């Protein structure tokens, strides 16, 4: 299967890309690998099930609940019951319904922002790593400055100054303050890749820098980029909830973060209304854990040293028999 160091055919970029993918290079990711990740790594499987569940809820959940999330029932601040599974808020809104709608908005914006941040990281990191020299020096300096600037306080500062509150504001603020981590990782990877044979070949065959960066280097970093997207989504969902909890989001929409905001502002805690602030937290924690589990699997895939060797069952049985025999 391995083509080894077969020189890529000039002027046939598709063939070049194909060859790089088939090289034993450890960072490329193929469909078969994804399947193997799923079936052989229980962590990834559990993670995918959890995330899949939330995505499903986000997609079809709102279609299954009858009332609007802001519909006000007559029983205010009711404890969980058969009628209101997760109780009601001080205004009589059904917490379960809010949670379902909140899932949609939090997941949608979490993933959108995560992808947006990663796109910035990819463009900046790959450009710096590929060109090297002065371009790299300047971009690296900017990356490092953004790395040391405290992200969340900066996000709060910017969000406080932007007069229109809303999901887009939160997205922009988080993107501005959190692209640097991914950019640094990707820059390092690209730097180590730019002198490889297939890149040299593409360069000498006259491919444009743009083409080399996005068609030759990018496919070889899919595992890292995927891990980066997932890691960023975890951060983004937490940061969004944090900003919204502070009242810096759009408090009229229903999301996990704004549910916290209203619960906190109405002293849910002092009223003993645990059902009000408990569910969104469980959701965020579960989703975050699910995403982290998937990332664990990708990490183990990209760095075999983190992987525990799997001993085939037959050999294991023999070993046990040997031990018993002695």
């Amino acid at each position, binding site marked *: 299967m391995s083509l080894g160091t077969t020189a890529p055919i000039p002027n046939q970029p598709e063939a070049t890309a194909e060859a790089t993918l088939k090289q034993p290079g450890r960072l490329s990711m193929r469909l078969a690998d994804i399947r193997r990740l799923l079936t052989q790594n229980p962590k990834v499987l559990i993670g995918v099930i959890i995330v899949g569940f939330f995505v499903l809820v986000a997609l079809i959940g709102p279609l299954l609940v009858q009332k609007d999330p802001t519909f006000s029932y007559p029983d205010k601040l009711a404890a969980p019951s058969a009628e209101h599974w997760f109780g009601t808020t001080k205004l009589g809104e059904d917490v379960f319904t809010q949670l379902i709608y909140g899932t949609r908005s939090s997941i949608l914006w979490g993933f959108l922002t995560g992808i947006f941040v990663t796109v910035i990281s990819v463009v900046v990191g790959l450009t710096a790593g590929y060109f090297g020299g002065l371009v790299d020096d300047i971009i690296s300096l900017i990356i490092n400055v953004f790395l*040391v*600037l*405290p992200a969340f*306080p900066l996000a709060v*500062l910017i969000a406080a100054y932007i007069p229109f509150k809303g999901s887009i504001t939160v997205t922009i603020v988080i993107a501005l303050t959190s692209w640097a981590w991914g950019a640094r990782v990707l820059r390092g990877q690209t730097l180590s890749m730019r002198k490889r044979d297939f890149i040299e070949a593409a360069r000498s065959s006259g491919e444009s820098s743009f083409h080399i960066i996005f068609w030759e280097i990018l496919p070889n970093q899919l595992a890292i980029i995927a891990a980066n997207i997932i890691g960023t989504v*975890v951060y983004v969902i937490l940061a969004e909830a*944090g900003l919204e909890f502070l009242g810096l989001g759009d408090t009229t929409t229903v999301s996990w973060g704004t549910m916290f905001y209203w619960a906190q502002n109405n002293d849910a805690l002092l009223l003993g209304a645990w059902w009000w602030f408990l569910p969104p*937290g469980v959701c965020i924690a579960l989703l975050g854990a699910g995403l982290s589990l998937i990332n664990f699997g990708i990490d183990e895939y990209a760095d075999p040293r983190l992987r525990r060797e799997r001993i085939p069952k037959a050999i294991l049985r023999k070993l046990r028999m040997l031990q018993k025999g002695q």
Partner: protein
Amino acid sequence: MRQLLRRLFFYLLAFWASLTLNFFIPRLAPGNPAGAMLARFQGRLPPEAVNALLLQFGVTNEPLWMQYIHYLNSLLHGDLGLSITYYPTPVSAMLAQELPWTIALVGTSVLISFAVGTLIGIIIAWKRGSWLDTILPPIMNFLAAIPYFWLALLTLYILAYTMNWFPISGGYSLGMLPEFSFDFISDAISHGILPALTIVVSSVSGWMLGMRNAMITTLSEDYVLMAQAKGLTPRRVMVAYAARNAILPNLTGFALSLGSVVGGALLTEMVFSYPGIGFALLQAVHNSDYPLLQAIFLLITLTVLVANLLVDLIYLVLDPRTRQG
């Protein structure tokens, strides 16, 4: 030495960047924060305060570069402006009042968390595949994914509201005066335990997982094998050979989190109504107290930068490879 100077130059540059960001964010923001604020304080602000405010938000006829120089100049003299919420208290005085609380609470928690997490990380990497190593990482993962403030709300609800074991809010009891007496200090500590606990619980996993992964990488190095082959005690191999080399990335993380000592406690301080920088930041956000907001951001940045510089220095001592640069 040259390396050190380069780092120093970098941190100065980063600080300048944050100063500049701080200068431009209010000026680039659409709308007019000064106008909104003046409307809020209609007639209650003396004319010189209005003037100072307008200056602060760049509502002057001066060209931008002049404003910029004025801004840098006043910062150089430690003049951070006057708080809007607590007019006319200088922002710097407010910060001086809040800072000790934050440093005591978060500094202690971060230290505990770092020490405990790193230690557990070393042990579970050493006993790879044991039941501890199988159970702890997933649990820690879950803990790490829990939103900080939610964990805080939950512990507050269970341990303070339902069980009544801890005070429900504040840094000390009402009616007490901050002073150096046994009564006050023990009161302050009993108020601090719960917030500190939540910070430790939610951050310990990062240290643990980071240390574990670094340890595993180090354990596969030849010199560790060599040490084992020489017949050194497992304890010696674990601590002096593996852990000592694996701890470097965690130390970097420690520096970064020391920087976030000031900013990271924002949500915790809010939930526990604990006095400190985070709580002040929250009030600044809610009251549109922009001078306070900006000063806090600068303070947080400064701590982060100083912490980073310190770690660079520690690195020079610990890791001889960095000295050659």
